[in-house]
């Protein structure tokens, strides 16, 4: 059994990291908003989904105009990513302005309900528009990359099987890593990133330093939503078919990843996402073997969430949610 698990391990890791990269970037959106407002922005999963649809719409437009045939695929992807990020970034900012800001002094539970409301609203708006435009709310966008790369893991260690990597996975991983590094750099090194951290730690005092807190909150929503939307594009590219309900379960898992890493902690969210992706893929590949056929691959979420619960029992603040000792 061990040797069977070992054989598939390279493929599990490749697929797990690809899925995990998606979780990780979406988790960033949850963790940033939580860090700054202590709000679980339930609509964030739907921002991701909207991003996937906007991206596919832009691709359809470009393909209809004949641009896809004449430009390199990577350039087309870049255009789609930029347009989608801008659209979802502004969307996220607008949602905060309309649905959360008026409730800022209300109990957190009220804002959470508002977020769930926005979530349903986005699902139905996207479904309505897609059905109206294309006659069906499940769509498959034009594929930019369809080649595959074989990875020769067996030459590293004879117990491994080779793994197959789709070109789109490589692009997804590279894009996700660039987004994460970019965000980490922005938050930790730039002046506005410092403003974001200060608002997250003590909003009133940040205002005393001359920081327009509302502007920083808007910026946070813009960045989180732009990243979420871009991830939607990468998801559509990787898995092909999308529907307006993909945001719910993916959002939930990304949120889980954020909690696993320590909610409010940006690097924690990245790590939590990758870990959850790998765990899920591992379970999906091996659960049947490990349990002698009692549990099949469909129980992968039980396995992944079981691990989450165990981690949280022993480390409720998450893996990276280490609080500094604050003296008074």
């Amino acid at each position, binding site marked *: 059994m061990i040797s069977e698990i070992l054989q598939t391990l390279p493929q599990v890791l490749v697929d797990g990291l690809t899925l995990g990269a998606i979780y990780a970037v979406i988790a960033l959106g949850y963790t940033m908003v939580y860090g700054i407002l202590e709000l679980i922005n339930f609509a964030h999963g739907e921002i991701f989904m909207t991003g996937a649809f906007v991206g596919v719409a832009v691709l359809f437009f470009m393909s209809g105009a004949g641009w896809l045939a004449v430009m390199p695929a990577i350039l087309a992807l870049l255009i789609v990513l930029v347009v989608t990020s801008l659209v979802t970034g502004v969307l996220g900012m607008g949602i905060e302005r309309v649905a959360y800001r008026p409730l800022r002094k209300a109990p957190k539970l009220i804002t959470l309900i508002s977020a769930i409301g926005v979530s349903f609203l986005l699902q139905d708006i996207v479904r309505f528009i897609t059905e109206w435009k294309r006659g069906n709310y499940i769509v498959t966008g034009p594929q930019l990359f369809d080649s595959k790369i074989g990875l020769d893991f067996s030459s590293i260690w004879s117990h491994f099987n080779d793994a197959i990597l789709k070109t789109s996975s490589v692009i997804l991983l590279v894009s996700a890593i660039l987004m994460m590094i970019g965000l980490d750099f922005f938050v930790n090194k730039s*002046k506005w990133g*410092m403003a974001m951290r200060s608002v997250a730690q*003590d909003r009133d*005092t940040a*205002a005393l*330093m*001359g920081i327009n807190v509302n502007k920083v909150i808007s910026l946070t929503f813009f960045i989180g939503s732009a990243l979420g939307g871009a991830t939607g594009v990468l998801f559509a590219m990787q898995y092909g078919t999308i529907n307006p309900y993909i945001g719910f379960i993916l959002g939930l898992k990304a949120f889980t990843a954020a909690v696993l890493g320590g909610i409010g902690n940006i690097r924690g969210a990245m790590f939590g996402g990758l870990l959850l992706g790998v765990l899920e893929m591992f379970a999906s590949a091996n659960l049947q073997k490990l349990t002698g056929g009692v549990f099949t691959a469909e129980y992968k979420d039980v396995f992944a969430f079981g691990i989450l619960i165990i981690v949280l029992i022993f480390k409720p603040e998450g893996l990276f949610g280490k609080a500094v000792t604050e*003296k*008074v």
Partner: protein
Amino acid sequence: MSILELKDIQTYYGGIHALKGISLKVEKGEIVTLIGSNGAGKSTALKTICGQVQPKSGSVLFNGKNISSQPAHVTAKTGIAHVPEGRRIFPRLTVKENLEMGAFAVKDKKAIQDRMEKVFHYFPRVKERLSQKGGTMSGGEQQMLAIGRALMSKPDLLLLDEPSMGLAPVIVEQIFDIITELNKEGMTILLVEQNAFQALQVAHRGYVIQTGEIVMSGQGSDLITNEQVREAYLA
């Protein structure tokens, strides 16, 4: 013209009528102290000045300009720096970042560097801790950092809310020495304190606030010898 003037300020704070018609003046170059017991409205008065709390009526004049409905982040950029009660250091920012936050509105990197050197001159301890997280410092160090952070905006008026709170007497001594030194170099200071004795010793003038009203005012040296003040606050 006074650098700061409060005219008949009425403020409600958390459903409580916290300030019931406060009027006071601070002249350029003065240390003025506002003393009173817990819950008298001292902090609310400072919060009203810096814009964290909006008064219901009355006006706050800063260099003659009415700033009473201005939000805190705007007031912060116009020359008033507030060292809040409990210091409110950003716990997970480094000491250096905390100082940089104080000069957030300043674009000139050279000016920021110069001001930081000035802060190190007053508080050498802060320089030793630059890369440490703010939350890991002792109470006294945090108070020094909080004052240093406020100085980074090069304010015309410094508001200090209970700088002695929770600190050992020897540290309180040091903090008050710095306050006097800052004032000698021209800083105008409005100081809120429960530690009335210390405050009146360094202040030119003082106001005594009781349940949202000013009940007495005068020279610091007069208030310190006043029978009523002694009985209520210095006993």
